[in-house]
């Protein structure tokens, strides 16, 4: 059979394709629907948080940081409770990372604050002696792209039914709603949220930029980091 296949490239190619496609079909398909169900308390990202997530991706923080806490005592002691599949239901793309040059950030919002990030991102080694994390000073002047963040929120709401403007059950039995209005309204809202963060950052330059109606990347990034819980 094999020597016949080697003389018949078409069937050879079909054979190869079937053999390699098989594993994907068996392994990936059955789990699909189930893994995408959110756990109680998982909320979609706000527009400002999404803009921060885009900054995180733009500067590939995931090259050095994971967002996946494995179920070992050493990890839960260090980072908090281990990750559940449903917590990632609104993560497009997932940002688990593959290398922990820096610590896991899955729940960094629980133990780091806005002003801590404001200092740390500017000059990590000044906050944590011996840090090899790059300084990200350009984020303090580059302006975040709120339009694209809104575009993404609107897209996932329309295409994937991500529950914006919907009551979402929380762990304590109450509910919460993440609103998604039109672009203009969302821009205003993002600017208001940014002003609060800028104030907590205790940096005059950032406050000045925000008061001009622009949102520096660092502000969006911190909004995102604070949402990681």
């Amino acid at each position, binding site marked *: 059979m*094999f020597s016949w296949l*080697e003389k018949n490239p078409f069937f*050879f*190619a079909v054979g*190869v*394709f079937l*053999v*390699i496609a*098989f*594993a994907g079909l068996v392994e*990936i398909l059955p*789990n699909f629907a189930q*893994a*995408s169900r959110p756990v109680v308390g998982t909320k979609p990202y706000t527009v400002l948080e999404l803009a921060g997530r885009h900054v995180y*991706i733009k*500067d*590939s923080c*995931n*090259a*050095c940081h*994971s967002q996946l806490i*494995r*179920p*070992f*005592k*050493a990890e839960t002691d260090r980072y908090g409770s281990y*990750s559940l*599949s*449903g917590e*990632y*239901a*609104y*993560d*497009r*793309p*997932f*940002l*688990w*990372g593959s*290398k*922990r040059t820096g*610590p896991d950030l899955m729940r960094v919002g629980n133990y780091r604050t806005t002003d801590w990030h404001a200092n740390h991102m500017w000059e990590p*080694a000044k906050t*944590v002696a011996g*840090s*090899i994390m*790059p*300084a*990200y000073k*350009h984020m303090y002047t*580059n302006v975040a*792209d709120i*339009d*694209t963040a*809104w*575009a993404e929120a*609107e*897209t996932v709401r329309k*295409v*994937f039914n991500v529950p914006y403007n919907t009551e979402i059950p929380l762990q304590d039995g109450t509910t919460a709603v993440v609103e998604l209005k039109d672009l203009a309204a969302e821009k205003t809202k993002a600017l208001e949220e940014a002003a609060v963060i800028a104030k907590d950052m205790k940096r005059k330059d950032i406050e000045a930029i925000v008061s001009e109606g622009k949102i520096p990347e660092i502000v969006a990034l911190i909004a995102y980091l604070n949402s990681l819980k």
Partner: protein
Amino acid sequence: MENRLEYDYSVAKLFMWSTLLFGIVGMLIGVTIAFQMAFPSWNNWLGEYLTFSRLRPLHTSGVIFGFTFSGIFATWYYVGQRVLKVSLKESPFMMGLAKFHFWTYAVLMTVAVVTLWMGVSTSKEYAELEWPIDLLIVVMWVSWGLSIFGLIGMRREQSLYISVWYYIASFLGIAMLFVFNNMEVPTYFVSGAGAWYHSVSMYAGTNDALVQWWYGHNAVAFGFTVPIVAMIYYFLPKESGQAVYSYKLSLLSFWGLMFVYLWAGGHHLIYSTVPDWMQTMGSVFSVVLILPSWGSAINMLLTMKGEWQQVAANPLIKFMVLASTFYMFSTLEGPIQAIKSVNALAHFTDWIPGHVHDGTLGWVGFMIIAAMFHMVPRMYGKELYSKKLMESQFWIQTIGVVLYFSSMWIAGITQGMMWRATDEFGSLTYSFIDTVTNLFPYYLIRAIGGTLYLTGFLMAVWNIYKTVTSSKAVAESSMQNTTPMGA
């Protein structure tokens, strides 16, 4: 052979030069980011454009899609014509297609480099490019496929040689993986706002991770394994004048590899939130994968049976024999890391880049370099410029690889042990930063290893450049096996 075919190497040559160019650029960035891990101030020499995190995707894309894929295409346009006994000269259409393939590739790689540098990224490893570039990639890839099947359609040699099996598999495998992993929705077209090139993944969270590592792992299969095996099956027998040791073994390892490889992707997700059975499958199949991998490697090493003096005499054979050896080493190390308890320690540590690099530097890099050395004299009708230079390059690069993986072993295991260490009361012994500062010496050794490898690569580029520009002319017909080399 009477009536020798006149092969056309113009496209093979173009791809060879892009192999060398991307090799230099990709490895230079690699060395830079290696030094940044030891000396973080290097991050801030050029504002946002020289940070580790901006450069890292440029490094991986540069060496994978630039260096390795150029090498794959260069060897295809060389080997394909020869083993199928057809010439691109015979068909203006196939010739045009091959040129079209190269130029779409050149354009898309240029756009890729610029956009990644600007930070336009989907974040998915080795699939960072945004959708417009993905579309270009599809066009480029399809033109390669047409070229493969077109040449096969015209062939005079009825039976497909082993290398051709592997090129076909590489084409099909990457096509399937790429399409599914890059399913994304352009946000501008749905919402009418924001950047037109931005997109959002079709999959969320755990699903996205599953698809990504099915892709990520198998991109290694169909980019770093399958086409490189295609190369060694052609170049080693050709250069040594030895027949492939066992046809049965090639058959067994080919179909074995095709079947087993795809299951092993789950080992990237051990102890993550994907279902347990998938993690276990990933683990088990990774171990089974040793069989077909070693099958190919042993087949290659045994091809040299009775002719081991050639290893000492011919640096090209040295490169290929060491490449097979690193392939065996790497395909043993991988499965070990896939064992659950080992993975618990190794995952997320520097041992992983260590493993990647004994495969890529030792196996992929050496094989591509050997292939270039074999092809250049035949494409340009010149003898290789300097054998001595090749010999010293071999040793410099080998020492580079050894420094790289040994330092990363130690770094990775140290890191893994420190993360989990607890004192007598059960609380964590080390703060995270302790585990970082501890690694400084290993990061430095790794960077030095990388520098040595890059130095060796520059020597190869110089050697090839001198071969083309100022070496002695030799008739192609007199280059049956051992490549002629100047002192």
